[in-house]
């Protein structure tokens, strides 16, 4: 089966529909699927629910889908970097479901692992626990969090072979593996596709079984907080 596509547009063919749920990898602007986000903007898909730790900045990352009003709801842990996000949220145009960061990551991981929910101490006694089942284990209280299964996962890795076995680079791994796993379909963009057999099987971070379609392209990789010391 052929997984490699010529462009982000081609790789998303037939996968997008209004009202869909998309899980996206990335942390801040690090390791985001920038090519696939652009292709979704061009496709004009509407009323999307996006599960992603953050929502980009005004003119880059998922922020571009806010500007075009394609996102109806965000499931995130932190959205502080985006003025347009705040404007839409405060005016009621955009729905927001805050998730503690680890709970969001585990909801994705669980969704991909066939686990419909899990109990966690995170959020007990806070607004996050409201309306959720509480249960005691060993004298401690936990809340039930439900898995996320997305219609589509869009993720970014460093390298992949033609079967979709993928390797990430440094902290650009972040939410990409859990997001990839929770998608019914996963489209992966990488900086370089290599021939199958060129990657060390012991070094694979995301096995190709999780990856359905694959593209290679140029990435801007914008830096949010360039912090340097004197040489």
């Amino acid at each position, binding site marked *: 089966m052929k997984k490699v596509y010529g462009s982000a547009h081609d790789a998303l063919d037939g996968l997008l529909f209004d009202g869909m749920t998309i899980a996206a990898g990335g942390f*801040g602007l690090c390791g985001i699927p920038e090519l696939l986000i652009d292709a979704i903007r061009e496709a004009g898909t509407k009323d999307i629910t996006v599960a992603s730790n953050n929502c980009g900045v005004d003119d880059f990352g998922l922020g571009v889908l806010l500007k075009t009003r394609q996102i109806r709801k965000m499931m995130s842990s932190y959205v502080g970097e985006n003025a347009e996000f705040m404007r839409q949220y405060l005016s009621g145009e955009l729905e927001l479901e805050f998730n503690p*960061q*680890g709970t969001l*990551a585990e909801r994705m991981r669980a969704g991909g692992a066939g686990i419909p929910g899990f109990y966690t101490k995170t959020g007990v006694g806070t607004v996050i626990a409201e309306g959720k089942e509480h249960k005691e284990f060993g004298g401690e209280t936990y809340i039930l969090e439900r898995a996320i299964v997305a219609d589509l996962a869009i993720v970014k890795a460093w390298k992949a072979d033609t079967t979709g076995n993928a390797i990430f680079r440094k*902290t650009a*791994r*972040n939410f990409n593996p859990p997001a990839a796993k929770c998608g019914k379909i996963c489209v992966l963009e990488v900086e370089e596709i290599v021939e199958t057999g060129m990657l060390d099987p012991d070094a694979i971070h995301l096995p190709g079984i999780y990856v359905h379609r694959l593209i290679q392209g140029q990435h801007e990789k914008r830096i949010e907080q360039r912090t*340097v010391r004197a040489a």
Partner: protein
Amino acid sequence: MAWDRNQMAARAAQELQDGMYVNLGIGIPTLVANYIPEGVQVTLQSENGMLGIGPFPTENEVDADLINAGKQTVTALPHTAYFDSSESFAMIRGGKINMAILGAMEVAENGDIANWMIPGKLVKGMGGAMDLVAGVARVIVVMDHTNKAGESKVLKACTLPLTAQGVVKRIISNLGVLDVGEGGLKIVECADGVTEAEIRAATEATIVN
């Protein structure tokens, strides 16, 4: 007299013990890394997926794929390890991180902490704060004792939405060090030139001892 930001960070660094895995929050807690005592090896965790955070890069070393949880560019160390976000929070939730040092808007005498939202104001999100305070064995708050209006941030009960209940073990403020204990807070140490009476006057919470 009281401690300034750097003195608070230096005092917090005295909490670190050799071999610890530690998560530092944004703001004054980040400065703690500058004061790690000599002979003490600690590994700093960044919840986006890294153990072993190195210093900020030189201009030539900047790498868009290498950032900390505050989204700042950083560098790696010889013992650095990278992992995904679900793995990162598995080690946090699983109690593998020995200590979290973070800021707060309010702390209560029972160890409750509020540090993520002010109703009616812009809400940015809790990020990893709720997971960290719920999962890490020893949670230490570093913050100013009072707010800009001069009101105590060390309270009988938090007024802001909580980040977690009963998790804070120690408060290091500009006025001194207080421990959460039975029946209230215990003054452990006064900042240079600060008296116990001054700490009591700036504290709404019950102080025992």
